[in-house]
């Protein structure tokens, strides 16, 4: 169960105040990417490839350029040459070079005085293609006769003789696998497949870029990471990073998909060609689906040995993933996370990162982990059923604890998997009786959490209120949790703290809000910054009192003599100290930058009850429970929100969502009508239990809560469908058609 009583130690941490940006967001005032405009601004549009794979023979932009109101046209010829590695990948993905590599790949871009004109101009660009054979599926892409997407794309990890579309290879593990499988009472091996999905943020990518012939520029953009945008745009365009200033807008969801660049460099390239007039580019939904985001798709073999009592004896995973036409499928993460909840002495992992004619994959919530979990957790469940074992008990029996070596190597610090599983066992949802055509599934999930480069400043205003500048955009309420922590630490009201997400000119480099790091890393850095200001305030009080600064401590929002020997002085409040800081030595502020240490991993477990319509194969979610270790919930409502949102994204991945390609290699479902994400009427309430096993590496025990929740739904729902129908689905999504077919197959 949640460790009750933890919250009472705090005045503010663990409470649920209104978020500071709430008013702007319910009144329509909050400014998102597309809401920003500048005087003299032009509008951009992008021409995209209709082919999955083709040579570009010729691009004729003359008709577009001749159109009245068109101010600039760019193609790859406007980009610098000679880039290498990931910089080249990013440039190639921003704008195609010799070949287009996927349906939707950018080929040219136009800036004009209106969006309609820019779109008209794009249609006037003539491109001559030589269509090449393409490959979409990961298993097809490693067949000997598969079209080669890019010669020489493989890195040094790939052994001689592998198919050319394998660009990264990995194997790692430990222990005696053979002996482990020999010691098992049951050994099973199966293959599982997941399809590519999209992060599906409702806000399409949008930016305004401005750049003069002096190569100095500015950008306003919806992003999870303004410094990543700066670094990547500059790499792709051959600019100096410090000359580009990037300001993040409010962000309408990202889930990992807004940690990289897509059309942002195009706005700068167009602006430079249009004499420095700012250029706004807003993607359409179909551009978002065709050319940004998606996850990798996976084809995964898993083999597990289990004793009759449920003890795991050995495990092996071989995962193949395609992440589009560029290296970077999160096959490593999938392998690290797959067996992470289990104590294993013999384990082997093999991974292939494979190219296919699809858009370059981007991070999506716990990248890789959901696929790995689908394969591993599904097989564990199948084996539990075969041996008549309780799936929660088996997970408990094999659960990793503090000090255990993880399946992928490092030793675990303080973790809360056992506490999570105990909370699952005690939850009332497990006691709900199941009716006909109903089933229950359980699965665990894991995410490392992340620190990352972090730089935070805070300063005290003359009225004693506090501003905090962070570099991690607020996607799900992090300004509220950061304000709570700083106010708690200073002993002042929550409302007296304002947290601002600032532009790249204001702080040292920050990694994006990704890996569930904002509340952990920016939070820790904000507290360490605050410590500096507290020290300075104590020094100012000591000066005034004429005592040693060491004899002053900070408590309840005021400097106080530290014990009777320090002398008798009334507390000097933050307001008092701030009010005279002009005379006592000037501004009081604090700053901290580091790669904050002490990341705490997060385990979760979900329980889902479904009912499957035997006629249609439609799966309805009846009940859903998320249990996850938060370390500490700073603002519990937004922790619950992360759990619920993650679970529902996982439900979509499990049941409906997939990239569907035609024979021609074109994406068949590039609108929300056909790429169907869960809607309100698909779902019940999502029950949550916040387990709190504090992370000793964070002043308030924070772990990070965003990622893990998307992982367990995929296997949990597959297992629930199995119980409801007797059919095991090993290929996502489990659409009504597939479920019906699987049910029919077992009838016959």
């Amino acid at each position: 169960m949640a460790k009750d009583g933890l919250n009472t130690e705090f005045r503010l941490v663990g409470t649920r105040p209104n978020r500071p940006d709430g008013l702007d967001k319910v009144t329509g005032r909050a400014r998102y990417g597309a809401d920003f405009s500048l005087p003299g601004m032009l509008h951009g549009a992008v021409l995209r490839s209709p082919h999955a794979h083709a040579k570009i023979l010729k691009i004729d932009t003359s008709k577009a350029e001749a159109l009245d109101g068109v101010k600039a046209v760019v193609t790859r010829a406007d980009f610098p040459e000679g880039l290498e590695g990931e910089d080249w990948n990013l440039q190639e993905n921003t704008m195609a070079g010799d070949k287009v590599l996927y349906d939707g790949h950018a080929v040219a871009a136009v800036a004009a005085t209106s969006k309609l004109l820019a779109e008209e101009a794009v249609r006037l660009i003539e491109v001559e293609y030589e269509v090449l054979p393409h490959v979409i599926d990961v298993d097809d892409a490693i067949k000997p006769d598969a079209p080669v997407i890019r010669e020489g794309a493989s890195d040094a990890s790939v052994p001689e003789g592998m198919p050319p579309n394998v660009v990264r290879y990995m194997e790692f593990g430990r222990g005696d696998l053979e002996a482990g499988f020999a010691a098992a009472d049951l050994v099973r091996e199966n293959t599982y497949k997941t399809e590519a999905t999209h992060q599906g943020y409702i806000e399409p990518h949008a930016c305004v870029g401005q750049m003069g012939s002096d190569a100095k520029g500015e950008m306003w953009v919806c992003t999870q990471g303004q410094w990543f945008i700066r670094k990547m745009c500059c790499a792709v365009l051959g600019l100096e990073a410090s000359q580009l200033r990037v300001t993040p807008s409010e962000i309408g969801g990202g889930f990992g998909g807004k940690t990289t660049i897509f059309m942002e460099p195009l706005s700068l390239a167009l602006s430079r060609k249009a004499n420095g007039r700012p250029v706004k580019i807003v993607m359409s939904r179909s551009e978002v689906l065709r050319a940004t985001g998606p996850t990798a798709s996976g084809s995964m073999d898993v083999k597990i040995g289990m004793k009759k009592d449920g003890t795991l004896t050995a495990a092996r995973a071989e995962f193949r993933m395609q992440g589009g036409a560029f290296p970077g499928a999160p096959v490593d993460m999938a392998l690290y996370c797959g067996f992470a909840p289990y104590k294993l002495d013999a384990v082997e992992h093999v991974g292939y990162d494979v190219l296919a004619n699809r858009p370059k994959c981007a991070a999506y919530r716990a990248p890789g982990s959901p696929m790995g979990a689908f394969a591993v957790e599904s097989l564990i469940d199948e084996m539990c059923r075969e041996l008549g074992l309780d799936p929660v008990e088996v997970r408990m029996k094999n659960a990793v604890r503090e000090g255990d070596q993880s399946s992928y190597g490092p030793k675990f610090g303080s973790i809360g998997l056992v506490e999570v599983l105990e909370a699952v066992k005690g939850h009332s949802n497990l006691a709900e009786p199941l009716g006909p055509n109903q089933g229950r599934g359980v699965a665990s999930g894991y995410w490392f959490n992340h620190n990352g480069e972090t730089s935070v400043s805070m300063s005290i205003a003359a009225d004693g209120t506090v501003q905090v500048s962070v570099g991690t955009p607020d996607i799900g309420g992090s300004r509220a949790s950061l304000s709570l922590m700083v106010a708690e630490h200073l002993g002042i009201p929550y409302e007296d703290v304002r947290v601002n997400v600032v532009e790249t000119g204001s702080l040292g480099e920050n990694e994006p809000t990704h890996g569930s790091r904002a509340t952990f890393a920016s939070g820790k850095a904000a507290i360490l910054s605050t410590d500096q200001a507290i020290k300075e305030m104590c020094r100012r009080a000591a000066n005034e009192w004429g005592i040693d600064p060491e004899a002053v401590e900070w408590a309840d929002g005021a400097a106080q003599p530290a014990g009777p020997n320090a002398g008798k002085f009334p507390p000097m409040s933050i307001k008092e100290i701030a009010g005279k800081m002009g005379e006592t030595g000037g501004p009081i502020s604090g700053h901290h930058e580091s790669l904050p240490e002490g990341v705490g991993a997060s385990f979760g477990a979900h329980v889902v009850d479904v009912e499957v319509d035997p006629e249609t194969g439609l799966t309805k979610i009846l009940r859903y429970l998320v249990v996850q270790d938060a370390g500490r919930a700073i603002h519990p409502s937004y922790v619950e929100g992360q759990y619920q949102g993650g679970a529902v994204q996982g439900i979509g991945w499990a049941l409906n969502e997939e990239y569907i390609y035609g024979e021609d290699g074109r994406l068949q479902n590039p609108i929300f009508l056909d790429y169907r994400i869960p809607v309100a009427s698909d779902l019940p309430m999502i029950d949550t239990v916040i387990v709190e096993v504090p992370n000793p590496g964070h002043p308030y025990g924070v772990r990070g809560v965003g990622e893990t929740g998307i992982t367990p739904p995929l296997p949990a729902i597959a297992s629930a469908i199995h119980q409801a129908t007797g059919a095991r689905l090993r290929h996502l999504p489990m659409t009504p058609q597939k479920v019906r077919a699987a049910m029919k197959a077992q009838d016959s």
Partner: protein
Amino acid sequence: MSKHHVTTTVNGDAVEFLADPRETLLDCLRDHVGLTGTKEGCGTGDCGACSVELDGTLVCSCLVLGVEANGKTVNTIEGMASGDALHPLQRKFIEHAALQCGFCTPGILVAAKALLDKNPDPTEEEVRYWLAGNLCRCTGYDKIIRAVMDAAAELREAA
């Protein structure tokens, strides 16, 4: 293409603008009237982020042409609060943490208000089906549904 002169009432104010006949009401509100609270998530009528009321009817403003608003009354998210006083739905959304990124929020608030204007005492299922055309990718809808139900209860008490 030559532009059309459109005269409308938006959130109670008389408004005029010039619209290209290809522009949607959503484009016109955002680009010509300067009301960017209404959002575009899809442009195809599938996400509800662009929800507004047109002569009292809930519509996706991305599926209405700007010129169609001529002589009509449009209500957007910017007109939902009366002065300083938030509509109970707006207040409950903040209190229940019914938004994360907040991008879907204007459309959902406008749609939910249209529901409560019609049906002051909806069941959870009615709220879920009414809002089925409003996509939210962040919240899993749980807190949104609770906020709408709670706002409905408060409005009933006040009535």
